[in-house]
């Protein structure tokens, strides 16, 4: 195997030979190799986020007809570094009566919960941190630390707006976790495995072709999990100051911020892996470097949609947001899951497989549209009844 075919395997073999040559015990060699892998994967995520913040600011600026950061470095590329230096040299204020331990752990936990997802991301053929056989559930599980960090931050700040923000945030995060977990189940069902590498390998046809609606619902519920516009009620500044991170200053605030950006990009990566074939593409089997490029391009596509939604839609009301989840997303995902499960078993391996699954998606979509139409008609009738409401006239 040469360097150009698979540089990662080539280099890791080289280092492994070197370590074995030092007469180390095999378990020690495994440990060092794993440690090295961990450091590389984790830094990849964190270094990526530095440039993603720049990218997002640039893109958001273009959406708003601005230029965006353009002073620090070429095209403002070094803006994020300037921000980091600023945040680090800012005074760190801990409010009186704050619960010191929980207050300090919360921002770290918020970054950790997102970073942990990267441990199971398949970057290319054979390039994966940890190919555990419960990968998809693992992603759901580490997400719960994010919820915990929000709750800890809100509670420990000893600020009623922070606590209110935390409550809203948790109500939102746990609500949207239900459709997310159910839509995660659909790629698992189609691939017959929970390992992310297995899911990518099973996608000789992208799963988005079989399951476009679940892919869309996964993206929507993931955006809600990040807590971004239009789902940013947890930091609605007109109502609850800045929500759960009101009392955070300096780098601790920066960590919540970095966690959010990393999460947004991770959602793009996950959507690419679960529904858009991950690293698959022409030549990716033989040259894994190509696979990484394909994955990152697909992930940036997903990330772009997240940014697009963010800069386009206004914040929605909390009752609308919760109704949208419980009365629309959850029933629709449950219906889709049942339909896809039955059709998958009935038509697996036959020529009718693809038409049947697409038909299922269409039927659910049509049913949804009819139901929404009826709802709109009913609401319009109700509004008409109050048409002649008294109007204050100038005397």
């Amino acid at each position, binding site marked *: 195997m040469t360097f150009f075919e698979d540089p990662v395997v080539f280099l890791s073999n080289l280092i492994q030979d070197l370590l074995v040559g030092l007469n180390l015990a095999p*378990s020690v060699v495994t440990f060092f190799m794993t440690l090295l892998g961990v450091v590389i994967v984790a830094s990849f995520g964190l270094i990526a986020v530095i440039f993603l913040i720049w990218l997002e600011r640039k893109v958001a600026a273009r959406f708003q007809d601005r230029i965006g950061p353009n002073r620090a470095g070429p095209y403002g590329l070094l803006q994020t570094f300037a921000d980091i230096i600023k945040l680090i040299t800012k005074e760190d204020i801990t409010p009186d*009566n704050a*619960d010191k331990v*929980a207050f300090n752990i919360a921002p770290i936990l918020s970054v950790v919960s997102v970073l942990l997802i990267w441990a199971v991301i398949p970057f290319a053929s054979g390039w994966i941190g940890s190919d*555990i*056989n*419960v990968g998809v*559930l*693992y992603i*759901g*599980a*580490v*997400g*719960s*630390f994010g*919820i*915990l960090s929000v*709750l*800890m931050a809100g*509670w420990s700040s*000893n600020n009623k707006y922070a*606590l209110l923000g935390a*409550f809203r945030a*948790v109500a939102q995060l*746990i609500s949207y*976790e239900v459709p997310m977990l159910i839509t995660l189940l659909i790629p698992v069902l189609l691939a017959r*495995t*929970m390992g992310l590498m297995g899911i990518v390998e099973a996608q000789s046809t992208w799963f988005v072709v079989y399951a476009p609606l679940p892919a869309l619902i996964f993206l929507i519920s993931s955006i809600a999990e990040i807590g971004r516009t239009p789902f940013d009620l947890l930091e609605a500044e007109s109502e609850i100051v800045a929500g759960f991170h009101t009392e955070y200053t300096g780098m601790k605030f920066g960590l919540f911020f970095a966690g959010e950006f990393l999460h947004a990009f991770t959602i793009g990566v996950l959507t690419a892996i679960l529904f858009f074939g991950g690293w698959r593409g022409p030549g990716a089997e033989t040259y894994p470097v190509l696979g990484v490029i394909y994955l990152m391009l697909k992930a940036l596509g997903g990330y772009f949609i997240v940014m697009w939604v963010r800069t386009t839609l206004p914040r929605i009301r909390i009752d609308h947001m919760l109704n949208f989840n419980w009365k629309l997303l959850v029933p629709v995902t449950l219906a889709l899951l049942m339909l896809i499960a039955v059709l998958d078993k009935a038509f697996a391996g036959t020529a009718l497989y693809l038409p049947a699954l697409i038909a299922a998606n269409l039927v659910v979509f049509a049913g949804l549209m009819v139901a929404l139409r009826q709802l709109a008609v009913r609401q319009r009738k109700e509004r008409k009844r109050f048409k002649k409401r008294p109007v204050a006239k100038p005397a």
Partner: protein
Amino acid sequence: MTPIQLVFLFVAFATLWAAFMVVTRNNLVHAALFLVIALFGVAVLFVMLEAGFLAVIQVLVYIGAIAILMIFAVMLTRGDVDDIPDITNRYAGWVGLVAVLFFSSLVILMAQWPSFTALAKPILSSRDTIVELGTALVSPNGYVIPFEVASVMLLAALIGALVVARPRKGK
């Protein structure tokens, strides 16, 4: 001592320490946060038993749902940072004695059970353990009745919880 045994000892003691902190904290939210550590320790122990699925479930359900629900409940009812001044009452000594007696008799009973010291047999299936679990859950020779009963039980729990928790009209 192998590294894995060292890790086991560390995790086991951390779990026990966290569990001890849960019942001795004056602050209910702190107790709940220590409970999270204890539950996470159990998840790590599951991993060391090569039960990855159980470990993830442990984190997803117990930390992600049940612990969050508990913290939620504590904060909703008494979110103030005030501590409960005294968490023991006059029966504390008796309760401790009963607990020690109960635990030691359990240990003695367990020690007499021949499988207690037996080493676990490796799973002889060529298939993935999760596939085995999935087939067992829905096969008529396996656990299909408990599986469906679990669903009914969850439904009952949902209805019960809603009846208890839903604010009554006119109040």
